[in-house]
């Protein structure tokens, strides 16, 4: 384990909204390449905040402060240009957010158009087909690529958003409770998809659903009151939690 450089590493990462209260306290952890890591914890424990810090989302809000380091392939993202970091780290949000004024086709390519990258028509077609196939949406939408993304069902929209993130070939894909707004069948589709995708991309997923964490993740983090309480192999964490608080959470006593 020591020999592989982690693709993502938290080093005493802190995030605070005000001077007094820290939402994330000194989190340190290393994420291996091509794994799915689930971040769990009761609401308000800082799991989303930690995830969003990896994409430098806090930079959009002037009163949020970060401390420590987050290393992406060994480079501290806090000292990089946010737009470069974000182009290499994809993100999928709780509610599906296809851009309402763009077609399905343009939605997949929105990462390029937003970054001002020009592509030829054949390049575009190739990317759209590859990404939509990646998220198992191609067969469903290949005849309606010019329709607005908002016409799709919730699950399809979320898969479109994943495709949009994958189009940029990110190193890491962040997912903030991506199935919480979806029905069970759509959730199952997304979970199967993530297991496929981990061959290509390292996934960090925030979830409040322990079943989901168990089904898809290889590693799990448990956070409580801003601290990373326990981090390890998902099976071990669920079967033999070392910390009392983890045990309490897993048995439903907190959360």
């Amino acid at each position, binding site marked *: 384990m020591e020999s592989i450089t982690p693709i993502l590493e938290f080093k005493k990462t802190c995030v605070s909204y005000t001077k007094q209260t820290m939402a994330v306290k000194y989190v340190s952890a290393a994420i291996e390449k091509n794994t799915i890591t689930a971040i769990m914890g009761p609401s308000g424990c800082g799991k989303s905040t930690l995830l969003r810090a990896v994409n430098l989302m806090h930079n959009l809000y002037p009163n949020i402060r970060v401390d420590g380091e987050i290393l992406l392939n060994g480079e501290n993202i806090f000292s990089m240009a946010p737009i470069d970091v974000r*182009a290499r780290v994809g993100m999928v949000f709780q509610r599906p957010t296809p851009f309402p004024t763009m077609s399905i086709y343009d939605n997949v390519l929105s990462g390029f158009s937003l*970054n*001002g*990258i020009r592509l030829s028509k054949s390049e575009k077609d190739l990317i759209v087909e590859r990404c939509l196939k990646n998220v198992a949406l191609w067969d469903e939408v290949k005849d309606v690529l010019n329709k607005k993304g908002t016409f799709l069902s919730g699950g399809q929209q979320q898969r479109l958003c994943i495709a949009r993130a994958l189009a940029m070939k990110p190193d890491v894909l962040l997912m903030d409770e991506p199935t919480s707004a979806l029905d069970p069948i759509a959730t199952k589709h997304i979970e199967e998809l993530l297991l496929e995708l981990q061959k290509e991309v390292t996934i960090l997923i925030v979830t409040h659903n322990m079943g989901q964490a168990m089904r898809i993740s290889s590693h799990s983090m448990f956070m409580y009151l801003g601290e990373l309480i326990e981090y390890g192999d998902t099976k071990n964490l669920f079967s033999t939690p070392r910390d009392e608080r983890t045990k309490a959470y897993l048995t439903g006593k907190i959360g």
Partner: protein
Amino acid sequence: MYSKTKHRLIKDKAILWGICILATLTAVPLFAILGEVFINGYVQLSWSFFTEPTPTAYKTMQAIENGERIPGGIANGIIGTILILNMAMIVAIPIGILCGIFLSENSKNRFAKIISYLTDLLQGTPSVIVGIVTYIWIVVPMKGYSAIAGSIALFIMMLPLIIRSTEETLKILPTSLKEAGLALGGNRVRVMLKVQLPAAFGGVFTGILLAISRVIGETAPLMFTALGCSFIRWSINKPISAVPLLIWEFFNDPYLQDMIWGASLFLLLFVLTLNVLSKYLKRKWNQ
């Protein structure tokens, strides 16, 4: 493959600066206007400016020949404005509130939708047209300009403003408020008078203040209705002056140019105070 990060960041910064500069420039006219009116108007303000009517042509000429300050003030305009505005308010406030209640309670009914469109139409009607129409309606049949005609013109201008603010305030009240009142056995009149209107008081009141500040500076609709008058008068069926009308007169009279700024300062202070006050009260009552 990726276009230059640096180039994009510079462009982003440049746009931000451009927006800040242009937005700041937009604030310049306000301070330029305030500055001009204050500096020129301040020197003219005195007690007699508010208590005396506009000077006659003879007195003005005399003062100019002797190199003295032009005597007189804008008392006739102030009294006219108060008279016209009060008459307009007495009618516009109750009718406006009643219409606002009607629109808030029947928002889905077809008749109410037509009324809503017509209220928008009225609100967008240029003030000069309100002046013409009031002239045709009132001045022609009464065979003369009058304070009544002026107040009817201002009434037409105030009405849609009061209707909209009342309607909007009532609409954002929680429906539970009305339901709770009705559940206690009150009929709809009582619930409206005892529960809904008191809860909406802040919004309705600030709406009225804003409506006053909008119409008090109106000149065009008064030119063809109240006409103007150079002495203090209290009758409502004769021509009467108003502060904006006086500014217009001073503007057109080469001998009275000096008095423009005092009258403007008075009007501007009044309008902006009402504006700031209504904004402050709105924020305070919203908390």
